[in-house]
């Protein structure tokens, strides 16, 4: 990635916003993070299975995750 000082102000602003979002995600309550992980598992599992990797999506009561699946 290019150093920040030679990026356009718009791209620099987007990168700063992205970093801020990651810090916001880090501050979520743990149960919300678990829900996010299960959503990631649902999204990624078909790709990994297509590559022959055996993965198990957590079967826990996470209604938000099911809606996203």
């Amino acid at each position, binding site marked *: 990635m290019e150093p920040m000082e030679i990026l356009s102000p718009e791209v620099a602003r987007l990168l700063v916003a992205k970093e801020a979002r990651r810090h916001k*995600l*880090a501050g979520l309550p743990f149960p919300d993070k678990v829900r996010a992980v299960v959503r990631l598992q649902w999204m990624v599992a078909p790709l990994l299975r297509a590559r022959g990797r055996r993965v198990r999506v*957590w*079967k826990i009561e996470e209604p938000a995750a099911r809606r996203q699946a």
Partner: protein
Amino acid sequence: MEQTLQVLNDLERAGAISRYAIGGAMGAMFYVEPVLTFDLDVFVVLPQTRGGLLTLEPLYEALRARGYREEDECVNIEGVPVQFLPAYNALLEEALAEARETQYEATPTRVLRPEHLLAIALQTGRDKDRERVRLLREQARLDHNYLTGVLARHKLDDKWNQWKS
């Protein structure tokens, strides 16, 4: 997930494990952004066996008696594949002894301190551990005095300096 932790608490009360704490990616996630993982790593202190042998078999027996079965290297507990890892060295023993008491919804549980998670990742040293160290450095609120002590006690300061640069 909450039911999984309730089972772990029950195993501890019943003496199948002496103490447990969440580690690995899920442990780190108490302090950093969510990252993809498919297992719940649980570090355990096992009760002393007569021969002094470190074995997970009595724990697996207790889980089988509760209807939970092994799946490869994990045990599926209430929909979550749990990997039990016995504390096999001084760093892990210390990490478990000093793990933080916390709550998951209404259920009490324990999670390793971020400084220990960082030290364990340093000690393990795989590519994904580098990424964990980076995330913990960037996002977790580390107690730097405490971390310095952990790294010195377990002779990880040189590696820490290498990975930091």
